[in-house]
């Protein structure tokens, strides 16, 4: 054992280690400490630097720039935005199209949050009970999530076409032609079509989170419940739900974000139509900034939505935490 090692851990040292005079030992120790600190710093830089750089460049910087642009009437075609103060934020108050987009986004979000929080929970419990072909069936549910949002949206766009879509062709083939609908562009159905598209593509993800949590519930709890004569419903209510609360919270927050961020599916399928009826907040920002050349105002909308989303997410987490503690 070297002197340095002995100094670093005197208790581990052998019996015959001589103690160095205090003044003599302090300088090399400080030096070594400084060197170790520098090495840690370099390691941190190497390991975290690229991620910090990417996150800073692609998330933090655009957010800061977004705030700056929200104070301008920048169209995206010039390099010199023109400062207009808070005019964009004042315009927000009277923007009917924004409120309409908010209403539609909230409608979709409520459906999505309810389905991914509770529908996925039920599915996960059922899948957990499967006794054969467990992996295959779980895989089938997860498979659509592997596809990119754009691919799954394109697929459903073709399936939903009134004349040539597979859904209506199948209905006609089965003699149920009167049930054929314009699934994608009928104003009464389009909201559910979009929800169906999101539900189909992401159900596997949310179910998998629940399934993972279900594996962590101790078997003893089930055994004790069975001995006490509890049926499947009681087990579900008194054991599984309380134990799944952390995932339920996670899923509800994730699904809220899914709902509020609804965008790719809209771009590929309805482009906000018919009319502007399926314009979500995300699509409205794109419409304003990219199609209507109002980058400044689009930035103001995105900031307002970000603030609102943050407030909702904080409230949601606080509420669910309280519920979790109660359970």
């Amino acid at each position, binding site marked *: 054992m070297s002197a340095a090692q002995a100094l670093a851990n005197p208790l581990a040292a052998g019996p015959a280690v001589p103690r160095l005079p205090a003044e003599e030992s302090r300088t090399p120790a400080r030096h070594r400490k400084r060197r170790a600190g520098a090495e840690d710093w370099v390691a941190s830089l190497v390991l975290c630097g690229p991620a910090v750089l990417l996150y800073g460049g692609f998330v933090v910087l655009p957010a800061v720039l977004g705030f700056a642009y929200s104070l301008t*009437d920048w*169209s*995206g*075609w*010039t*390099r010199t935005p023109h400062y207009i103060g808070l005019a964009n934020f004042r315009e927000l108050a009277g923007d*009917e*199209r924004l409120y309409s987009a908010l209403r539609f986004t909230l409608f979709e979000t409520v459906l999505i949050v309810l389905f991914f929080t509770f529908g996925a929970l039920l599915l996960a419990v059922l899948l957990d009970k499967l006794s054969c072909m467990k992996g295959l069936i779980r895989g089938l549910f997860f498979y659509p999530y592997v596809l990119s949002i754009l691919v799954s949206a394109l697929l459903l766009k073709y399936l*939903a*076409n*009134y*004349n*040539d*879509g597979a859904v209506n062709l199948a209905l006609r083939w089965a003699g149920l032609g009167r049930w054929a609908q*314009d*699934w*994608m*562009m*009928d*104003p009464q159905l389009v909201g559910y079509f979009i929800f169906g598209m999101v539900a189909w593509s992401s159900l596997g993800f949310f179910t998998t989170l629940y399934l993972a949590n279900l594996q962590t519930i101790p078997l003893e709890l089930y055994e004790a419940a069975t001995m006490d004569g509890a049926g499947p419903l009681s087990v579900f209510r008194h054991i599984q739900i309380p134990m799944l609360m952390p995932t339920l919270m996670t899923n509800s927050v994730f699904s809220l974000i899914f709902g509020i961020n609804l965008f790719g599916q809209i771009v590929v399928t*309805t*482009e*906000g*139509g*018919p*009319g*502007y*009826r399926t314009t979500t907040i995300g699509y409205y920002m794109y*419409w*304003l900034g*990219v*199609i*209507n*050349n*109002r980058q400044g*105002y689009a930035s103001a909308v995105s900031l307002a939505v970000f603030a609102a989303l943050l407030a909702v997410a904080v409230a949601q987490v606080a509420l669910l935490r309280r519920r979790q503690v109660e359970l």
Partner: protein
Amino acid sequence: MWTKVFIGVGVLAVLGVAVWAFRSEGDSAAERTIRVTRNIGGRAGFKRHFDAWQSAFERKNPGWKMELIDLGNANGAEYYKSRIATGDLPDVVMTWQLTNLLADGGHLVPLPDSYYERIGIPLPAPYKGKRYTSQGGMQIQGLLINKKMWAGIGVTEPPGTWDELLAGFDKLKAKGCKPLVYGGREWSAFEPLFYAIATNVYEREPGPGKPSWTILRNQGKVRFAADPAMRLVLEKMIQLLDKYVDKGAASDGYNEEQKLFYGGQGATWMMGCWIGGDIDANKVDLDLDYWPIPSMTGKPPLFVETSGMPSGWAITTSAAGPKLEKAMSVLETFWDPDVFQLFLNGEYQFNVSSRSGVKQPKSDWPPAQRLADTMLARLARYGSTRGFHIALDDMPPPIMMDNTFKAVMQEILAGTRDVDKLLKMLDDDWDSGLKGM
């Protein structure tokens, strides 16, 4: 430890040298390449034209390359904005109704009058004292007609009024034919509304003393909601979609329209002359006619011309420094007779140059050639208007064409019958669009 450091530094150095060498090579190639945007997508005729244009340029300019940036079916707005952000706008660009936005941003180089004189095309109206774009040919929009179907109800000549057209639709419908091919999902949904506004709301021959509807709207002197002609147009659009468009049309797009019409299942398609290129490329075997747009307000029928110099089909340059000369050479090579003929064949446009020596599209496919001849004859007889494609400082906000007209038609398909609500959509988007100009 040091060995690992040396190896790491060595690997990084080798990578750095490789990247530097690759970049240098790329830079030197890029310095001698003129990048050109074009909306080719899957259109074989457009691609044939580009290939000929590229070969002619590279023959004339040894050591230089012309590179295609294919914008597909898009109008390039998103692509251009992203390139502007990175300072990397291509050297020769198609501009459509984006010309003034690009010019205002300082991204376009004004073209000298001598250029227009050399190629023999009329001088476009200046924008803020300068001229920017060069049109390709004359692009017209009207009604593509399946002659056999219309002849089946005894109609062989274009209807004089909108109501006569609808009377024809009634007869076609009674005979079990689909009178109109129409899809509501994509851009093509706006065509009937665009036709109606261009031919009924706008002055057909605006002049210096007669400001266009656009100018009056921007000055706040007219609004969609208060314009009787505009109200009439929307009432007619409601009637059109209600009576002559089948259930499910809202989920159809341009491809479905093409399929139906070329498959002989529809009697009328409101679409621009460029469909002639598809008829040639796809060897569509139909006897076709091309009719002018009948009026709703008692005016004579006519075509809409959308290749007015400053907008519509327009190309220009953004090149600077030594590349400008070569970019101008690209523009001039466009008018090489062989290249220009292929352009007309692909787009089914008509010549506007006094020096090109080429007149109209040519095709080996008889139905396509007959259509080209018919188009030219009808154009000569009925004439055209520019509608709202007047000048760069006299254009509606781009959002109207890019989006709003389509949205209004979709609203009608979705069941909205409240004309005031539809007029408000138009006014709201115009006001919003103006803020982005």
